[in-house]
């Protein structure tokens, strides 16, 4: 893989915006198609939503997914608190260690919920364009909360 987006600030942000943009468009239309009971387009949308996320993750970290290494291994109990080494969380590796980080997580979650509420209105109206307002709020809230908890965008 020769993509080097993650090596520059502009590349990271551009890649995240482009990748999550594809995810938002796919999620928004995917939910509307699921509401309409149209199976084939739903699976196509699910694929592009995931592909957009992978691209955005690659742009910001240099990897398509976080590697299951010792410092980030799901269900790996060798060193469960290793995530705390370079992220703003307390020694348990679970809760944030400052009010600012907590505010970021709570604020991000509230924006994400606002995105779900907006989504309900426009999915119901079967409006593909405006459902993206909900999609952007949902994904933007996730990025804010993720940054507050881990120090990385995705």
């Amino acid at each position, binding site marked *: *893989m020769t993509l080097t987006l993650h090596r520059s600030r502009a590349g990271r942000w551009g890649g995240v915006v482009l990748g999550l943009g594809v995810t938002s468009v796919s999620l928004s239309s*995917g*939910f509307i198609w*699921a*509401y309409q*009971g149209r*199976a084939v387009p*739903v*699976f196509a*949308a*699910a*694929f592009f*939503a*995931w*592909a957009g996320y*992978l691209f955005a993750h690659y742009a910001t970290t240099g*990897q*398509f*997914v*976080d*590697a*299951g*290494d010792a410092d*980030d*291994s*799901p*269900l*790996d*109990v*060798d060193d*469960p*608190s290793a*995530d705390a080494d370079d*992220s703003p*969380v307390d020694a348990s*590796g*679970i*809760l944030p260690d400052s009010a600012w980080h907590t505010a970021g*997580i709570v604020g991000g*979650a509230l924006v*994400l*919920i606002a995105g*779900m*509420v907006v*989504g*309900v209105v426009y*999915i*119901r109206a079967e409006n593909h364009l405006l459902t993206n307002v909900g999609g952007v709020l949902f994904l933007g809230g*996730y990025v804010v*909360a*993720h940054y507050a*908890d*881990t120090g990385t965008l995705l």
Partner: protein
Amino acid sequence: MDAREAGSLAVGSLLVTAGSGLAGLAAFDDRVWLVTLGFLGFFVGYRVCQFGAHADGATAGFRRSVRGLASPEGLRRAGLLGLGLFGIAYGVTLFSQTIVAPGLGRAALSGVSSIGGYAVAHVGMNGNLI
């Protein structure tokens, strides 16, 4: 990216796509256990993607997961993951049903359940909230 990493990304992505597509469709049919199965497919697919990115190789990544699971702490984590998965599935099903028939209480419960479920599942998977 080598062939092994590309292979695990392709297989994992197929599972993620199948799982999330199934979850989306079943949610509007109000079939919460099918939605849970869909999200299980998503999580397994995500994990398969991770195996290929593992620094020690996909096999080592898989072995670490099995070793981690076969311990009291691993089982506790797996329990949290299962609980969180159901919370997400229940929340997403309620979200979809809120689209079909809007209701403030149902909307609020769907948000709490899906976000709470995500946090519990993520603690089970990775040991941190998000």
